C-alpha cells in the first residue's frame, strides 16, 4: 500500500487531487466491480473534467430545485437553536429537557479552514466522551482515510450525544408518506450516513474509546412528514451499509493490485492519450451508474458500442452470467453458436426464451 500513493499521483498527472465527500465515498459502494471508477477515485482524478474532455460531459448536475428545497428544509429544522429537532428528539428518544447544548462546528470564529475545524471537532468529541458535555454538534468536520489519503467529509449532519453515545442525524428533504419513503432515497441516505458513522467511529477509536459502543449504528433520518413541512424522525439501521462500506474501503486500499497491472506510462492527464488511457482500465457499466458517476455517459457509449449485456441492466447481466455481449447471446439463442460446456445452461435458457418469443409472435399473427 505504501507503494500506491506515488503511483496514483502519477496516474492523476498534473491536476490537483480531487477530494472525496460522503457522496463520492458512498457511490464507491454502489458499483464495487468497476475497476475504472476504483482507480480514478483512488487517484483523486477529476472525473468530471475527464468526461468533459472526452466529450461525454454530464449535461446537468444535481437539480437546483432539489438543492434549494433541501437547504430550506434543513434551515427550518435547525432554526431557533434547532427547536424543531429538539422537539423531535424529545418526543422520539426521550431526550431529557436539560440536554439542549448546541455547538456549531461550521466555522471556528471566522476561520473555515478544514484542519482548524477538524481539530475543533476532535476536541469537542473528546470532551463529550470524557465528560458527557454537549448535546448537538452541528457540521462536525470528520476525516476518513481513503486509499492512504485523508478525505475530509463536509457533512450536512448533526452528531448528537446522549448518555455518552453518539448518534448521527441526517436531514433529508424527501417526504415520508404514511411511514413510507422512496426506497432509493432512503438507501442513498443510509449509504451516506454510513460514511459519517464510520468516520466518527474512526475518530472515537483514535481518541482511545470503544467505537462500536460509543457510536450508534442507528442513524436518525429527519424528513418532512406526509405532505406537510413538519419534520419527522425515523431510525434507520445502517449496519449492512456499514459492512459494505468497510469492505469497499479495504478493497480500495488494494487498488494497487489493479494499478500494478496497468502499463507503466499510463496517465489520466487531459491530453491526446486520455481516451486510450481510460479505456485501458476496465469499467463495469450498469444503468444505475447514471445517477452516481460522472463517467457514466462515456461508459454507456462504450458499453453500447461493444454490445455489452451490462448496458441492459444489472439483472440481465447476472442472468446471462458469462455471456458478455448481446451478439453472443443472440447467436446462442438462435443456435448459430455452439455453447461451450460452462455456458450450456445459459444457452438452454436463451433458446427457450427465443422459442417462447417466436411462438408468442406467431400467435399474434
Amino acid at each position, binding site marked *: 500500500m505504501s507503494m500506491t500513493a506515488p503511483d496514483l499521483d502519477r496516474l492523476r498527472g498534473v491536476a490537483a487531487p480531487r477530494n472525496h465527500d460522503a457522496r463520492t465515498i458512498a457511490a464507491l459502494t454502489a458499483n464495487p466491480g468497476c475497476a475504472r471508477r476504483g482507480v480514478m477515485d483512488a487517484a483523486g482524478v477529476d472525473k468530471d473534467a475527464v468526461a468533459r474532455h472526452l466529450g461525454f460531459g454530464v449535461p446537468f448536475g444535481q437539480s437546483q430545485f432539489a438543492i434549494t428545497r433541501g437547504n430550506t428544509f434543513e434551515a427550518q429544522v435547525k432554526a*431557533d437553536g434547532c427547536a*424543531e429537532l429538539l422537539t423531535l428528539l424529545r418526543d422520539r428518544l426521550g431526550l431529557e429537557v436539560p440536554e439542549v*447544548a448546541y455547538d*456549531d462546528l461550521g466555522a471556528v*470564529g*471566522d476561520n473555515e*479552514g478544514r484542519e482548524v475545524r477538524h481539530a475543533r471537532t476532535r476536541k469537542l468529541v473528546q470532551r463529550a466522551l470524557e465528560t458527557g458535555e454537549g448535546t448537538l454538534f452541528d457540521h462536525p468536520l470528520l476525516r476518513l482515510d481513503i486509499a492512504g489519503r485523508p478525505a475530509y467529509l463536509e457533512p450536512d449532519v448533526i452528531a448528537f450525544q446522549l448518555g455518552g453515545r453518539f448518534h448521527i442525524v441526517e436531514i433529508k428533504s424527501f417526504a415520508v408518506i404514511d411511514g413510507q419513503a422512496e426506497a432509493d432515497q432512503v438507501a442513498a441516505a443510509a449509504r451516506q450516513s454510513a460514511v459519517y458513522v464510520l468516520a466518527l467511529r474512526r475518530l472515537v477509536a483514535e481518541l482511545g474509546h470503544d467505537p462500536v459502543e460509543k457510536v450508534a449504528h442507528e442513524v436518525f433520518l429527519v424528513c418532512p412528514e406526509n405532505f406537510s413541512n413538519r419534520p419527522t424522525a425515523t431510525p434507520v439501521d445502517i449496519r449492512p451499509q456499514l459492512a459494505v462500506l468497510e469492505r469497499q474501503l479495504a478493497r480500495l486500499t488494494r487498488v494497487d493490485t489493479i494499478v500494478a497491472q496497468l502499463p507503466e506510462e499510463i496517465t489520466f492527464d487531459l491530453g491526446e492519450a486520455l481516451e486510450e488511457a481510460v479505456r485501458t482500465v476496465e469499467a463495469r457499466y450498469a444503468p444505475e451508474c447514471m445517477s452516481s458517476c460522472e463517467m457514466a455517459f462515456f461508459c454507456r457509449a462504450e458499453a453500447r458500442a461493444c454490445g455489452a449485456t451490462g448496458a441492459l441492466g444489472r439483472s440481465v447481466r447476472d442472468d446471462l452470467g458469462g455471456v458478455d455481449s448481446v451478439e453472443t447471446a443472440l447467436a446462442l439463442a438462435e443456435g448459430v453458436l455452439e455453447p461451450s460446456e460452462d455456458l450450456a445452461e445459459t444457452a438452454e435458457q436463451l433458446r427457450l426464451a427465443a422459442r417462447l418469443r417466436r411462438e408468442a409472435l406467431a400467435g399474434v399473427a
Partner: protein
Amino acid sequence: MPSSPGAPSPEELEARIAELRTAVRRAMAAGDRQAARAHRAELRAAEGAWDEAVLGDTALGDTALGDTALGEPAPDETADDAPSGERPAPPPPPRAAVPRGLVPVRERVHQALTLIGAPAAPKLIASVYAAFLPGQLPAARLTSLRRDEERSFRSAPYARPYYLCAALTADLLAPARGLLTVSTWPLEQRISGPLSARTDFLTAAIRIAEHAERRPDSPDVQRLLWRFAANIPGAATGAVGTVEPGALIAAARAELDVHAETDRRQRRRAADRARAQLDDAGRLFGARLRAMRSATGTTDGEDDR
C-alpha cells in the same frame, strides 16, 4: 449647491453627490448638525439637478406620477440609510423612492430586537416585525446590515445612539453566525454559549407572548406564537394552531428555569473575558481571529465551562 448655469454633466453631478454624502456623514459623526443640514440641502439640490440632467423633460411626468404615488423620501432617510463606507454611494434612482414616513431598516430591526430581547436570526426578526409592527421587513435586507454597522462604527465610533451588532460566541468571542443584537444591551446578553440558542429561544417566547397578551389577537401573531409553542414542552395546550399566551409563558419559564443558571454562568465568564481582552469594536462586532491563533485549537473559553 444648485446647478450652475453651465449645466454640469451627470458624471460631474454624481461625483458631487458622493462628495456631499461623505460631507453629511462626517458632519453627523462630528455632531455638527448645522453643517449637516447645510450639506444635505446642497445634496438635495445636486440630486434634483441630476434627475433633470439624466431624465430630462420626458421623465418629468413619470417622476411626478411616482412622487404622488410613493411620496418623497423621508428627509432623514439618506443620512441614516446610506452605507457609511469610503466607497461613494451611487446616486439613488429617482423611481426607487421610499414611501413617506417609512422607518429606516436599522430602526425597524432595532424595534423588533428590543421586543424580542435576545439575540435573534434575521428570519425571526422579520416575522416578529410583521406580526407586531406596521409594514414589512424583508429578511433579505438584513444580510449586509451588520457589516454596514461595523464599518460605520469603525470609521466614527459611537456616533450613533446604538449599533446593530453581533452576538459573540462564548468560547472564541467571535461573531456568532446569523445573530443580530443591539449594542446597548449588556454584554452578557449578547454572548452566545452552548445553551444560549435554547435560552434565547425561550426568552423570546416569553417576551413575545407577553407582548401578544397586551394586543388584540391576529392570525400573524397566532402563527408566530405557534412557532414557539409547538417546540416547547407543555406550551401547546389548546387546539392545534391556537396558542394561549399565558400557557406559553408558563411553559417557557418552566424550561428556562432548567437552563438559566448554567447558561448565565457561562455567559458571565465569557463576558468577563471579552471585557478583558477585546477593544470597543471587538466587543461589539466580535474578535477577528487570525488563522495562527485558532489553528492551535486552544482557546481560553473551552476549559472554564
